[in-house]
């Protein structure tokens, strides 16, 4: 009777699969654990944070939404959310008003020196935020725009506009070229072609650009910190920074962080396609 000899290549294959599975599990943990712990802290009771030397539990002893109810019982917090909303919505409005026409031109016409023009349009974003914020704050002080909504909106528009132009440009480019030509032949003027044909077709991409702009403004910190300071107009990021400085209970910090992140995570996952396009465009030859 012959014994079955195990195939050595099968062992190697299994070992490779096990190694890959271990790598996958550790990568998933690397990504998920910090997020899980943030959520866990946000619903932790006081005893789960101040444990008196005992190990901090991996799940709260008595999960509670008290941090959230505390935040929402604070009138100042509502003011902060409204400020963030005002700035983000106005930034979206201004960025779209400026960016969509520019994206239309760049996406539909052969503009001479297009590459150079695009480089010129993103040049201001090539400066580190922490470097460009000093000149812009000084300029806004001179115009008395510091500590104003307008200052924050103008600065956030500066940050968002190149993204709106690039995302919008690809949205207009993706529309078949002869569509507007046919409409022109049939007698439609340039404005009709833009508003009745091209704009409706570009809407998905432009909505993505608008949401991206909203999120950029919603979680922006550096320009808000320099232009608004920790003064009267406070945004959610400034509110969180203010709280960090006073080392409040960690569940409160986590609850603010969750509220700040929630719209960003939800919309970012919805906009995955555009995010990855934006990231990889131009970065790989």
């Amino acid at each position, binding site marked *: 009777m012959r014994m079955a000899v195990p195939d050595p290549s099968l062992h190697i294959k299994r070992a490779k699969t096990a190694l*890959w599975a271990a790598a*996958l599990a550790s*990568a998933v943990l690397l990504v*998920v654990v*910090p*997020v899980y*712990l943030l959520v866990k802290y946000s619903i932790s009771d006081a005893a789960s944070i*101040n*444990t008196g030397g005992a*190990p*901090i539990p991996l799940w709260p002893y008595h999960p509670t939404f008290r941090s959230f109810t505390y935040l929402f019982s604070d009138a100042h917090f509502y003011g902060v959310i409204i400020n963030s909303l005002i700035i983000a919505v106005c930034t979206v409005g201004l960025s779209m008003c*400026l960016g969509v*026409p*520019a994206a239309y*031109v760049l996406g539909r*016409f052969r*503009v*001479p020196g297009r590459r150079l*023009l695009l480089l*010129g*349009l993103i*040049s*201001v974003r090539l400066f*580190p*935020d*922490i*470097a*460009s914020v*000093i*000149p*812009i*704050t*000084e300029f806004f002080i001179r115009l008395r725009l510091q500590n104003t909504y307008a200052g924050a909106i103008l600065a956030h*528009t*500066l940050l968002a*506009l190149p993204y709106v132009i690039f995302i919008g440009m690809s949205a207009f480019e993706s529309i078949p070229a002869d569509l507007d030509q046919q409409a022109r032949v049939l007698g439609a003027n340039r404005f009709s072609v833009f508003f009745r044909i091209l704009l409706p077709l570009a809407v998905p991409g432009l909505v993505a650009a608008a949401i991206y702009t909203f999120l950029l403004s919603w*979680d922006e*910190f*550096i320009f808000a910190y320099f232009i608004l300071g920790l003064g009267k107009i406070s945004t959610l*990021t400034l509110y*969180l*920074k203010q709280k*960090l400085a006073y080392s409040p209970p960690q569940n409160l*910090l*986590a609850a*603010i*962080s969750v509220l*700040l*992140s929630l719209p*960003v*995570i939800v919309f*970012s*996952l919805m906009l*995955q396609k555009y*995010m*990855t396009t934006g*990231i*990889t465009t131009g*970065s790989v*030859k």
Partner: protein
Amino acid sequence: MNESWEKEKRFKIHEVWPLFPAAVYLVGFLIIVGVYLLGLSFSIEKNGATAFPSVGTVSAVLSNPEFRRALLDTTLFVAVGTPLELAVGLFLALILYQQFRFRNFIRGLFLIPLAIPVLVTATILFILFDYPGGHVNHLLLGHYGFFPALVHVPLNWRGSEFLALGISMLGKVWRDMPISMLILLSGLNAIDPELFDAARTMGAGLRRRIWHVVLPLMIPSMSAVVLLRSIEMWKEFIFPFVLAGKYALLGTLIESMYNDWGNSSGAAAVALVLVLCIVATTFVFLWITEVLRKHLVRT
């Protein structure tokens, strides 16, 4: 002929006018940033009056020990953080390079760090690396059964320069790893498997195949990661601002000079140095990439 050229020219200007407001906005701010950055850096306050041009501010900043310390720390931050970002990005990209069930779901999961606001990521680390409590200290002290004790006393993470900048770097790498992953994954996907097979058929071993087939083809994406990540490392502000406090990098030094010391000229001078560091790094990396590419292709 002249007439038709004029017509064409007028026609084009008429077509492209909607571009002008955005162009004026962006280029206008670019000019403002440039003019103010240079204007502030090369001016100095003397007896209540501002003197321009003057190298006084720049030379005062360059001889400032805090600036030198911040420049050194930032250089180390870039030198260590950039390869780390490349390694972590490659690790995630290689995992996703395989075909498996739920691949798209896992890919979406790996993008989560990018979707979390930077300030929130910094806050997560602020909480986890708390002293003397905090999950990380409890983990290292062996308070959880699944992990051995590695230290006997809790570590004051934000109270030591090395640890504070270390966790700042950790936060930066964690937050940005999806970007590196996506770029490297697109590089990996661009490699034609037939090339790899052909090299094997021609007798090339695994080492030679990786060195002479995969690596040269991966150079564009790897250099993109190194270049983009190194620039981001130079620019980093929020993580050290929240986590490293008094241990300044160039970014946080700009903030403290401007907000704490009221020295806008000094802050602008440091910002100028930061911009020059980024430009220099970009040129050095592009040169190294070119040399490396030529070397690998030739051999």
